[in-house]
């Protein structure tokens, strides 16, 4: 018996130019805020952008974007609604505020279901807000999304960076392109993370200072785009746009998905 849903995933994603997974080794580093701000900033630059919250057990981008009554349309599958200029998809359309405890196999099944039935249409960018670490969602995202690229977020903590090393080791073993590392919530001018990133042979893309204004901007994307975090993410956007050609080439040569 085979799961036919897997065979249609490529078709569902074929009109998307780039798929960027915002990931981290551990939780609490600001992935969801950076993923949301990145998606909003790319949309402001005029690109067609989607945002997909893949953190099924602890989703938070719906709170960042201030999602209220928006719902996907059912049209030969699921069509994500447009929210603040983004095509936005989240499991919270279905789970609302309820706790949804999922084990690994459930996470994989939910991911396959949503990847095989969501109709994104044409997009320049699809930003994925990943759960932390190298568990089922990360492994499956890499397995099912052929042209995925990773953007890694860390804090200045050496503990956070320890887990980044494991994530990078995994992504390299799976031959997945890594755009680089973003250091978030910086409180001083230490260069430790920058140096450690370079030691790993990765690009240090941006440092974002701890921004006390961000908390008050949660639920209000216009306000979020006025924060220092957003200013830095806009610079990050430009760097991501520059990296396009080289990483995509590496990804296409390096990986072929086998079902």
């Amino acid at each position, binding site marked *: 018996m085979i799961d036919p849903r*897997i065979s249609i995933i490529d078709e569902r994603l074929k009109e998307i130019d780039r798929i960027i997974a915002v990931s981290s080794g551990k939780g609490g580093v600001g992935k969801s805020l950076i993923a949301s701000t990145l998606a909003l900033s790319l949309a402001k630059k005029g690109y067609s952008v989607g945002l997909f919250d893949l953190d099924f057990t602890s989703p938070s981008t719906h709170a960042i974007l201030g999602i209220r009554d928006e719902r996907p349309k059912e049209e030969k599958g*699921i069509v994500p609604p447009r929210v603040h200029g983004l095509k936005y998809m989240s499991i919270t359309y279905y*789970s609302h505020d309820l706790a949804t405890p999922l084990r690994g196999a*459930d996470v994989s099944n939910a991911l396959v279901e949503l990847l095989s039935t969501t109709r994104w249409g044409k997009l320049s960018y699809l930003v994925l807000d990943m759960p932390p670490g190298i568990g089922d969602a990360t492994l499956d995202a890499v397995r099912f999304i052929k042209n995925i690229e990773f953007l890694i977020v860390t804090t200045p903590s050496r503990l956070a960076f320890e887990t980044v090393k494991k994530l990078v080791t995994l992504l390299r073993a799976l031959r997945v392109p890594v755009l680089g590392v973003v250091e978030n919530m910086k409180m001083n001018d230490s260069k430790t993370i920058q140096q450690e990133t370079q030691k790993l042979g990765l690009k240090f893309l941006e440092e974002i200072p701890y921004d006390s204004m961000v908390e008050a901007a949660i639920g209000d994307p216009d306000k979020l785009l006025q924060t220092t975090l957003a200013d830095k993410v806009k610079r990050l956007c430009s760097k991501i746009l520059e990296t396009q050609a080289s990483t995509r080439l590496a990804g296409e040569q390096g990986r072929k998905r086998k079902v």
Partner: protein
Amino acid sequence: MHEWALAEAVITAASEIAEREGLKQVTRVTIRVGELQQVESAILEFALSQLKTARFKRAKFEVETEKARLRCRVCGHTWVFSKRNLDQATLEAIHFVPEIAHAYVKCPNCASPDFEIEQGRGLWLQTVRGVK
């Protein structure tokens, strides 16, 4: 018409198998659908009939539904999924993402949401038969 998206997946996967096995004409495709998915067999079959390519001209699609059986990981109680006591919005949410059942369904014995879907979940392509 969530069924339409699933029907497209069935045709794509069955075409891949037919290609691999050198089947010029597919005559019979059997599909198993988990009850939790709450797929309308008639809609799925209609979508399959609309989507079939030349290779499937003579194909008969058989859709079989598998009962959903759940097992609590805390107390070990086993029970059968029932639509009773679930409102329309909840059933629809489970239809779109069956794992969402973990947000709404609890073990009838100990009220734990930590249960295993032993059977009756997902969409499976069982057999693809045809002539070479």
